[in-house]
């Protein structure tokens, strides 16, 4: 192996892959059944880059050569950058050797589209197949589905990969047509449908024959770029909700657009990455998946944009003051978990602990809830907290206590008319 050449390839093809934000390596439950190498049942972040993002998988492109010209993508055909390509064996060697040293949980393999969709997809599948069959590799493999790839190849990919994903890229078809003229949304939705059906079938077969090999046991995910186009959070979250409901997606990722192009269809280079907005979208996403919120409770026609200065759970609570305060010693789990400042863990602890003793505010603080937020929404003993504060006042109290790292950027999102 030529050290300089492989180092250069790695730097080019890792750099080009980093805008794909998915880095999850959990939810697979693949065991080391053959006394081979690795297992994929944990979900471990092995390192964190200086941007604070987790490094769990070796995330690379097979090649950054691409026949498409998507404006938001660094690997677009018209971009004047160095191109490189790994051989199948090089990817296999890197994965195995990184894995053995405990650097990574597995491989995340994507690619620019060369020749055509199937030709590209075939090579991605080949890498996964080689790892699983020749190297007895049981670590995590996330394969990107190439838009327009054939059903046979997608089904083969699912036999070796833990997760398959295809990026919807833009929140609306209109934006996709504007920025990625070579792509169409149907080419993305069809593979999602195929994977979803195959996963359901696989589960049915597993009930009959326990030995049925797993099909994409960690499910599928998708990603969309945020802030490159004028969609509202309402459109974004409704789309995400649709993916969770219709395609049984495990995750929808929101990728704040990092300006990489002088294209006048896009925010100029130097425009800040919309990091707060991205953060608020993830918070909203968590509310839908773990807190029992319906999407229409988080955003609606009157409130199509998430607040930037406060999180969406607090926003919801302030819009629904008639539901509060609640009695922490009696209320249902479902409403306790909706109190700002109380998370899933604390809500469970509260419900378990109150069977033993009546919980006081001291108990709550010790259990670890964010009491300074929660106190406005729960029954309490002090006069200050009993007072009938207005939503705006509560918001100001909470904001004056907190010291958000995002504070300089707290201008509200601009409403487009």
């Amino acid at each position, binding site marked *: 192996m030529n050290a300089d050449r492989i180092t250069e390839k790695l730097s080019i093809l890792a750099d080009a892959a*980093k*805008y794909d934000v998915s880095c999850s390596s959990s939810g697979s439950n693949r065991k*080391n059944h053959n006394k081979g190498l690795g*297992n994929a049942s944990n979900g471990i972040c092995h390192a964190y880059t200086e941007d*604070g993002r987790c490094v769990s998988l070796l995330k690379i492109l097979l090649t950054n050569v691409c026949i498409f010209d998507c404006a938001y993508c660094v690997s677009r055909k018209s971009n004047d950058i160095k191109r490189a390509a790994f051989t199948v064996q090089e990817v296999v060697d890197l994965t195995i050797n990184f894995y053995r*040293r405990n*650097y990574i949980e597995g491989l995340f393999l994507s690619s620019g589209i060369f020749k055509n969709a199937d030709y590209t997809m075939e090579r991605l599948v080949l890498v996964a197949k080689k790892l699983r069959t020749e190297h007895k590799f049981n670590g995590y493999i996330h394969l990107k589905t190439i838009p327009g790839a054939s059903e046979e190849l997608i089904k083969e990919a699912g036999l070796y990969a833990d997760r398959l994903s295809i990026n919807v890229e833009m929140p609306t078809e209109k934006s996709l047509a504007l920025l990625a003229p070579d792509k169409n949304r149907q080419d993305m939705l069809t593979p999602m449908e195929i994977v979803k059906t195959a996963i359901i079938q696989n589960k049915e077969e597993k009930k009959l024959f326990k030995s049925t090999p797993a099909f994409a046991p960690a499910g599928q995910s998708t990603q969309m770029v945020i802030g490159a186009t004028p969609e509202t959070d309402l459109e974004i979250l409704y789309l995400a909700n649709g993916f969770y409901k219709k395609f049984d997606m495990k995750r929808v990722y929101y990728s*704040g657009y990092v300006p990489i192009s002088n294209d006048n269809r896009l925010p100029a280079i130097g425009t800040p990455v919309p990091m707060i907005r991205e953060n608020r979208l993830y918070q909203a996403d968590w509310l839908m998946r773990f807190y029992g919120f319906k999407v229409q409770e988080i955003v609606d026609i009157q409130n199509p944009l998430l607040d930037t200065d406060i999180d969406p759970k607090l926003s919801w609570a302030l819009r629904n003051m008639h539901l509060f305060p609640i009695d922490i010693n009696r209320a249902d789990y479902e409403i306790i978990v909706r109190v700002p400042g109380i998370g899933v863990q604390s809500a469970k602890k509260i419900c378990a602990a109150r069977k*033993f003793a009546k919980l006081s505010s001291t108990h709550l603080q010790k*259990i670890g809830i964010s009491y300074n937020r929660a106190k406005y929404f729960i029954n309490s003993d002090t006069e200050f907290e009993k007072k009938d504060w207005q939503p705006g006042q509560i918001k100001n109290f909470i904001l004056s206590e907190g010291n958000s790292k995002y504070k300089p950027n707290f201008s509200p999102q601009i409403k487009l008319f």
Partner: protein
Amino acid sequence: MTVVLYDGTFAGLLTAIFEVYEYKLQQPFICRDTATTGSLFGNTHNVFTNLDKSKRVYKKLQDKLSLKALKQLYDCYLSELPEIENVMLRYVQYALRSKIAVENDYANSDVLQLQQLSRKVHREKHRMEAFVRFQLTKDDLYYAIVQPDYNVLPLISKHFKDRYADQRWLIYDGMRKYGLYYDKETVQEVQMNFSVDIKSEQTLKEVFDENEELYQQLWKQYFSSVNIAARKNMKLHIQHMPKRYWRYLVEKQ
């Protein structure tokens, strides 16, 4: 007050708890026999680890608590925090006198402290599963040195055994001077006293496999290439990867 001295083992601690009941020790204060020179005014009770007694305590606790709670107790023992034995003793006493399982009574400060400490120990266990960096030696041994905040090697043994079933590996705790060694069949605890300075280039060449340096370089390259400079956030970076772990991380050298 009666100072109850035990030998630092888990079985020893359970024996001590047994003897608190057996001898009806007044105001017991359990600590390791290495941690103290004895009490000046009170009595001292020396515990000799007795497997039979420790098993009886464990069995009784199995009746009273869930497996999860028993694991939490063991985690707290591994934390090696001073005076944690007495929190554990009070917890056990509370568990034994209660008719129902007490592990979720978070309004009780001992129960809460035990649960929260167990979480901390688990976080450290998880960090070790993440931050161990093996280096391949010339004789095909994957070797790593760590210095965990708590004594978590017993907790990570199974994880590494399941994962690296087909390679010989050694994880050495540089602070507690012992390691786990896996020979492709079983994991053994090994005592030894050595230090290899991973930063020295000379040792790298002498001891390690010819490709070791290349893969370390590639990993460093990868680590810097996946960073998005426009999103730099050092506070978050350090929060997730506290500086005390950096000395064993290839990518932070």
